[in-house]
């Protein structure tokens, strides 16, 4: 077996193009494994762990591209490298042949003068320039880019608000506009709930759960996590609420976010109280429950978690439908305890820890909040409490929750919702640790996501369970598939694939997290705490 790295100096393709080329390159005869990546620290670390980094690759800079190939027979290397180089050239040529392509914003605006939305995902440092050109032409912007300097965000949003335009983002992973999925979003039924979310996978989870209980979404507007910080002042939160209040299709407005900074919280609360009349469900994922002002308390309900927020929406829209809605996504506390006991039955006494491997940032944050109350603060690469920051994000200790969408795992790589490589490696690492009782994972469906997220993990799940079993242990694996039957991947098919390798499936993230804590602690969780969490997060 031979491994070779070829470095292309100052050569750029985006991470998704490179992931596809890597997939194609693995199909070249004689190639055992292939990875074509930009030379970032993260990518080099992944290559090292795959045993595919050589001295040449190590010396590459982040502006360089690394072609890493593992072949059976050295004589195949030359042909394989030529084939990959050809693929790299084709990514530009083929696109050009298939249909009309544009190479500047101006030429695109000329070709589509009545464009009403721009989806912008250029690197953050260029985002202002690109987004502003659209705003100046009266086009709303969904800005997916992250690492946009906050002063650029403020400038864009102030300008947009002045002109009555939307800037959704930066860092907006998800929007649903006029029933269409923008960036990472699910195919959900249209309906009466308008969502404003400063939390991308939070928007995905609530829209999917609304769909499951028979409700639908009028508009789902992602505003980016920084919008509710003092520096931005909730500019788009207020603009979006204003738009949904005026929208005849929207009967109830849902706000999903981590708790805003105090001044922004006051601004939003005042705006809701003084400028709106529709019912609201406010889901500020926080340590304590947000209390709406007395004068609007009947119109505005408050939830700490996504599952609870969806049930609150059902209750507000039709109180009679609440119990039926709850049955669709919740099991009783007794059933939950029984399930946990069954799953924990074969665990060894030393298996005490949970390891959660998340691709969705908001879902992982919700997990941190729930664990804090049930089993105390857990380790993380994005912890609630700095003392619990993992010294090495690539290595778990104790109970640990990992956000695989954080910078240390994504620099120069496609997001883990698209590229499962890092989670596969991590799952196998977790399985080697004899203290692990349960591993949990989210599987995000919808447009933008991997075409088969469950299928992409099956081999790693089998391997992980095999490692534990070879050492006389059983590893409990839990999954929550955030998706609908109408998503391109199909909910049922994804869930079935996971069940076929022994994954226990949960309809919501909150339910999965509570169950995992019960499994790891063998049901020994303070009853008052458990009851409180079940009420706050599940409306049990």
């Amino acid at each position, binding site marked *: 077996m031979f491994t070779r790295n070829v470095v292309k100096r100052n050569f*750029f393709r*985006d991470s*998704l*193009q490179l992931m596809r080329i890597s997939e194609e390159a693995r199909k070249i005869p004689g190639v055992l494994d292939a990875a074509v990546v930009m030379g970032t620290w993260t990518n080099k670390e992944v290559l090292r762990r795959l045993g595919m980094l050589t001295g040449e690759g190590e010396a590459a800079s982040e502006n360089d591209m690394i072609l890493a190939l593992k072949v059976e027979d050295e004589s195949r290397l030359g042909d394989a490298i030529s084939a990959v180089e050809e693929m790299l050239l084709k990514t*530009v040529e083929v*696109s050009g042949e298939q249909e*009309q*392509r*544009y*190479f*500047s*914003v101006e*030429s*695109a*605006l000329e*070709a*589509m003068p*009545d*464009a*009403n*939305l*721009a*989806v*912008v*995902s*250029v*690197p953050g440092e*260029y985002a202002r320039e*690109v987004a502003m050109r*659209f705003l100046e032409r*009266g*086009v*709303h912007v969904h800005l*997916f*880019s992250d690492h946009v300097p906050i002063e650029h965000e403020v400038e864009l949003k102030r300008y947009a608000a002045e*002109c*009555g*335009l*939307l800037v959704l983002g930066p860092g907006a992973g998800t929007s649903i*506009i*006029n029933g*269409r*999925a*923008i*960036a990472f979003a699910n195919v959900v039924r249209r309906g009466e709930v308008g969502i404003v979310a400063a939390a991308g996978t939070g928007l995905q989870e609530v829209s999917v759960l609304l769909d499951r209980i028979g409700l639908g979404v*009028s*508009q789902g507007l992602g505003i980016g996590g920084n919008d509710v910080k003092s520096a931005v002042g909730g500019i788009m939160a207020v*603009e979006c609420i*204003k*738009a949904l209040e*005026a*929208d005849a*299709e929207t009967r109830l407005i849902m706000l999903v976010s981590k708790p805003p900074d105090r001044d922004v919280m006051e601004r939003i609360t005042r705006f809701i109280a003084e400028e709106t009349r529709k019912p609201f469900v406010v889901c500020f994922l926080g340590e304590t429950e947000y209390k709406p002002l007395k004068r609007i308390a009947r119109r505005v309900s408050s939830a700490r978690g996504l599952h609870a927020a969806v049930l609150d929406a059902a209750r507000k829209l039709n109180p009679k439908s609440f119990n039926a809605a709850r049955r669709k996504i919740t099991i009783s506390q007794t059933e939950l305890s029984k399930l946990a006991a069954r799953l924990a039955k074969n665990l060894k006494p030393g298996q005490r820890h949970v390891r959660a491997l998340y691709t969705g940032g908001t879902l992982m944050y919700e997990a941190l909040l729930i664990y804090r109350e049930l089993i105390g603060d857990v380790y993380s690469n994005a912890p609630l409490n700095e003392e619990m920051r993992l010294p090495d994000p690539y290595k778990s200790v104790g109970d640990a929750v990992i956000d695989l969408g954080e910078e240390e795992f994504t620099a120069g790589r496609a997001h883990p919702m*698209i590229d499962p490589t890092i989670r596969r490696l991590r799952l196998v690492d977790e399985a080697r640790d004899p203290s692990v009782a349960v591993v949990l994972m989210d599987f995000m469906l919808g*447009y*933008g996501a991997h075409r088969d997220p469950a299928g992409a993990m099956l081999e790693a799940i089998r391997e992980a369970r095999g490692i534990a079993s070879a050492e006389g242990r059983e590893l409990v694996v839990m999954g929550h598939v955030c998706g609908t039957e109408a998503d*391109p991947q199909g909910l049922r098919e994804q869930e079935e694939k996971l069940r076929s390798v022994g994954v226990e499936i949960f309809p919501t993230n909150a339910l999965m997290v509570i169950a995992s804590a019960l499994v790891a602690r063998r049901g020994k969780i303070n009853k008052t705490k458990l009851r409180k969490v079940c009420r706050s997060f599940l409306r049990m």
Partner: protein
Amino acid sequence: MPELPTDVKKAMKESKTLKLFRSELKVINVGLETFYEALKAQDVAAIHVSWQPPPKLEKELRDVLDKLI
């Protein structure tokens, strides 16, 4: 041009977002091509801009030119 009354300006502004909600989407995608493909798969009228970062040298030259101008 005389300043519009605040409520008129407000109504004009609101109408842009409401107009978006009531219109067929027409999208220009700049950057990740996968988002363009997702839009096409949903039958959304969309075009794609194959965006590339400006070469470093060009930026340096532009800075020099900016200074000269």
